């Protein structure tokens, strides 16, 4: 319907305008996303995102699964912050049943959140550099991400989709080497982060391609609900870890990174600084993990009391909110995920209009979109 109108508009209107489809199999969209871009010359007039190519109906599938089984589906929404998604659903169950999880669980969950955030930002960094033509960054980012994935593999047995958090605690305890290897990683990554700046941040080509591009004002960010590093690059203070602390975030000191420029480079700077912050959060927690159980006592069949429950967490891309309506059964009556990428995608028409088509790649890269998270 919408596309027919646009085509008509283009044919009847100015003859120089034309439509191109970016995607759904374009490498710069990092998944199956189709952007219908209307161009005048090389300038983007407007764009119309088409989603749904990887829609699996996760929200509907949740209605047939128990709360323990839902966890493995949330892995597959935003697969780069799988651990944080798991935590959101687990916390909503713990809230509803009023279960107090052991301190040890809170500490480990928070450390894993931050490791996951670093891994996600590393992958974003290498892919973003590659979008802008700096192929070298891809190897350097993945080299360091491998260290985190090795820690994950040792503790949970899987590298990307680790359904490790479960309602009440963790699936099993972390590996005995976990503390040692995490400390080694912090030490290692602190020496490698300056390389990132030398390779890409200071690079004149990169700076010229990212500064002043894709301006998003604070009002736009709030209006479209753009959260996470993309929103914070526009000065929108939206860090759930600060606003509504969960896990062990109230026990650590960290800064919410805010940049006010609102362009692609500002969003880049926020993510780079967040990696430093995440390292310092892990550093504060890793030596103080209390002894204790790795899970609270839970019944084998979890039934939430009838009612509505809501919980939000900060994933690597923004605010993930989970809303559950329960009718007292062991499966939810309705499950709704407010995923960060969905809101972050639809601001693109606003911030990419008026820039060149090459800048569109930079803008979509700076929003750090994960398509399965949009389609669910």
């Amino acid at each position, binding site marked *: 319907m919408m596309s027919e109108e646009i085509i008509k508009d283009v044919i009847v209107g100015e003859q120089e305008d034309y439509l191109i489809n970016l995607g759904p199999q374009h490498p710069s969209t990092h998944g199956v996303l189709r952007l219908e871009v209307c161009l005048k010359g090389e300038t983007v007039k407007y764009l119309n995102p088409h989603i749904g190519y990887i829609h699996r109906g996760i929200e509907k599938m949740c209605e047939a699964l128990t709360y323990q089984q839902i966890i493995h589906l949330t892995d597959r929404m935003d697969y780069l912050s799988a651990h944080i998604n798991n935590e959101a659903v687990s916390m909503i169950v713990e809230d509803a049943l009023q279960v107090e999880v052991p301190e040890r669980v809170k500490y480990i969950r928070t450390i894993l959140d931050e490791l996951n955030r670093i891994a996600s930002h590393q992958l974003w960094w290498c892919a973003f550099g590659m979008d802008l033509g700096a192929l070298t960054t891809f190897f350097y980012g993945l*080299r360091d991400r491998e260290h985190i994935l090795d820690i994950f*593999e*040792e503790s949970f*047995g899987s590298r990307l989709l680790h*359904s490790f958090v479960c309602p009440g605690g963790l*699936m099993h305890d972390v590996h005995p080497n976990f503390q040692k290897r995490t400390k080694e990683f912090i030490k290692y990554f602190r020496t490698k982060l300056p390389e990132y700046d*030398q*390779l890409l941040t200071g*690079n*004149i080509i990169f700076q010229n391609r990212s500064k002043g591009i894709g301006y998003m004002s604070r009002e736009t960010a709030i209006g479209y609900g753009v959260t996470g590093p993309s929103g914070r690059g526009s000065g929108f203070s939206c860090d759930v870890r600060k606003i509504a602390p969960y896990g062990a975030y109230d026990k650590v000191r960290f800064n919410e990174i805010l940049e006010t420029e609102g362009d692609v480079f500002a969003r880049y700077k926020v993510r780079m600084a967040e990696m430093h912050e995440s390292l310092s959060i892990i550093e504060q927690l890793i030596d103080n993990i209390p002894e204790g159980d790795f899970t609270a006592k839970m019944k084998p069949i979890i039934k939430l009391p009838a009612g509505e429950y809501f919980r939000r967490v900060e994933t690597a891309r923004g605010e993930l909110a989970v809303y559950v309506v329960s009718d007292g059964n062991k499966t939810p009556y309705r499950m709704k995920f407010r995923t960060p990428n969905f809101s972050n995608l639809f601001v693109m028409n606003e911030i990419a209009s008026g820039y060149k088509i090459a800048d569109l790649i930079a803008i979509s890269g700076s929003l750090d979109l994960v398509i399965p998270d949009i389609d669910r």
Partner: protein
Amino acid sequence: MNSIAQYFTDLFKGLSTLWAGMRVTGKYFFSPGAIVTQQYPENRKTLKMEERFKGEIIMPHDENNLHACTGCGICEINCPNGSIEILTDRVANAEGKLERVIDKHIYHLSMCTFCGLCVKTCPSDALAFGQEFEHAVFDRSKLTKVLNQPGSKIRKEAK
């Protein structure tokens, strides 16, 4: 005149940023010891996966071909994807009572998402994760496996 000076300042500043990046790549180019790539097909003999690696679901058997599965079906209920099917049989034991034993513990590797719920919830610890990860086969039907070995029996706990 001023603009020309500005042009050359920018040019040399830009070149110096490129040089900073080239220095990093050059450092690694001349020190191949820092390379961490695993030569996968060549290192198959020495490659050892982590102890907890979730490669596939296995049912450990001891030297007498005994396993611990009672055929209760909890793993089948807990599996979110229906990748486990248990066919049970009723067999008379030594005292003449009918007892439930597993006939086949069928595992569909093609449907498994490795969430680990079956291994975690098994009351008799009959299931475990195996480290095998090379699952490519030519025929889809080969991905359906029977976990209990032929002729195997349930391990009786000494009371």
